[in-house]
């Protein structure tokens, strides 16, 4: 009985924890709630009535679709670029020794440590100095800076756990460099890349600050939402879109969490 009691948290702590969690998550529930409200100009509480008409309205608005497809395209291309570059960089840093290796490793991680506004301003001035017009591709470039970090971090941790002799064993058994990558390296880092890619996609999908500085006339989904909040017209449409954003970003992050959680059994087995 005694030991059970010591494991139990005091009531005050429980209440504090519950309050903390509620403070973080109730506002999100409110967003969901207002997606169903009948009042379209103000967010009055409680909502005067409930309706699902805003889902149909959102479905039929071309600006929603434009923003959504732009965001998906940007996130997909930035993630793809980050997967290639981040993996190569992680391979170089973890498998070889060269001058400036530690510096490179720090510089790669820096963009995610810097405030987004710094990255944004820096990229914006660099683009205008180089006379690069702001376009779809400048947004992709901006997003790729922090997407690479996420992929790199995931890949480098996994690379470090692959014993160097695994690669030598593969070469020794007659596999050339490509076969070694295909049959030994990729299966061992695959889940880390998938997790890194999902996180990168989610980060890019809801990015606002860097996008504001690097976008031209286009609006990605988060930018579109910001603009919508200023205009009080069909407000619940924004909430419908917000729900979609939550679902689209939450699922990959959840997936990434489950993929890397069991990482020890995948890469570290037998060591």
């Amino acid at each position: 009985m005694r030991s059970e009691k010591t494991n139990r948290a005091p009531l005050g702590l429980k209440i504090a924890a519950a309050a903390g969690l509620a403070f973080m998550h109730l506002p999100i529930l409110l967003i969901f709630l207002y997606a169903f409200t009948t009042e379209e100009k103000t967010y009055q509480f409680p909502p005067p009535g409930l309706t699902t008409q805003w889902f149909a309205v959102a479905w039929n608005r071309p600006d929603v679709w434009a923003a959504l497809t732009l965001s998906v395209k940007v996130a997909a291309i930035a993630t793809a670029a980050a997967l290639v570059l981040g993996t190569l960089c992680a391979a170089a840093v973890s498998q070889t020794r060269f001058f400036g290796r530690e510096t490179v490793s720090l510089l790669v991680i820096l963009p995610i440590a810097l405030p987004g506004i710094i990255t944004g301003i820096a990229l914006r001035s660099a683009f205008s100095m180089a006379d690069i017009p702001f376009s779809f591709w400048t947004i992709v470039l901006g997003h790729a800076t922090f997407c690479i970090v996420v992929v790199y971090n995931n890949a480098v941790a996994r690379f470090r756990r692959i014993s160097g002799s695994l690669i030598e064993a593969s070469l020794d058994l007659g596999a050339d460099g490509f076969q070694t990558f295909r049959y030994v390296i990729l299966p061992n880092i695959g889940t880390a890349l998938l997790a890194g890619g999902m996180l990168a996609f989610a980060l890019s999908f809801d990015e606002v600050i860097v996008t504001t500085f690097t976008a031209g006339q286009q609006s990605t989904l988060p930018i579109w939402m910001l603009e919508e909040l200023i205009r009080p017209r069909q407000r619940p449409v924004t909430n419908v879109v917000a729900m979609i954003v939550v679902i689209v970003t939450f699922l990959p992050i959840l997936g990434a969490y489950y993929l890397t959680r069991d990482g020890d059994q995948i890469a570290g087995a037998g060591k």
Partner: protein
Amino acid sequence: MTTAVLFDNVSRHFGAVRAVDRVNLSITEGEFFAMLGPSGSGKTTCLRLMAGFEQPSAGHIEIFGETAEGVPPYRRSVNTVFQDYALFPHLSILDNVAYGLMVKGIGREERRKAAGDALAMVKLPGYGARRPGQLSGGQRQRVALARALVNKPKVLLLDEPLGALDLKLREQMQEELKSLQKSLGITFVFVTHDQGEALSMADRIAVFNEGRIQQLGRPEDVYNRPKTRFVADFVGSSNVLSSKLCQKLGLTASYASLRPEAVAIAPASDGALSLSGTVAGRSFLGATNRIVVDVEGSRIAVASPAAQAVPEIGSPVTLSFATRDLHPMEDA
């Protein structure tokens, strides 16, 4: 007799470090060849030069008459058993063993059969479906052996393969490796720091120190007639007689080695050499007693049969030994 591996004045430098320094050796086909030495002596680098993971800084390497420099590991007819086994954690045991055949493009049925046969050869039949993580150290060692041998290499390289096993398993594997090598007739090149292992398994031994071969020969020769002080000290526990004692015994060499079991505590008979000293220590080793005698400041160990009486510490004794047991050595 065909030469399996030839090293002609091979050096491998890492910056200022001469890991391998002007090594010459020639390994005959079908031989069980051991490279023995302390860690950092260059023996493992020599093995990696044979496998193709390192390239020589200078010199020439041939494997079965073909130049090996510049040939990547995957184009050499040698296979390696790694010290940490390096089994692929994401593949089953059968797929691990079949890996070499798979990358060569051999069909699924054929390579599975060959891998199954190889597992049976190392006494692990039916283990194919398991993962490396589910096997013990000794079993993983056998899998690593099967994975290398299934490719029918001309030379099998073994990098301290028994180092991670406990004593009993190690002795058992020594015998199995030896009989496997005899039945397959493949050249084995074996790296070890355990002199007992090298002496009991190898046809010939190369003793390495500081990147160079100190002595190369049959186990009996290396053990009984060490050429340098290092070999005398590292292989077994020979006494090294100082130049002062050598002079006293009328030798021209500056150092000489003397096996403890070649020395008797008894007055010298005709033709034998003798030295006198005092007993400085003694210990019981089972079949023998080890008696350390102080002779004019140098210590000489004597392996005396357990049946013989053991002199008290501090008592004066006479040591005698035959001239032929005294082996002059190079000063190195």
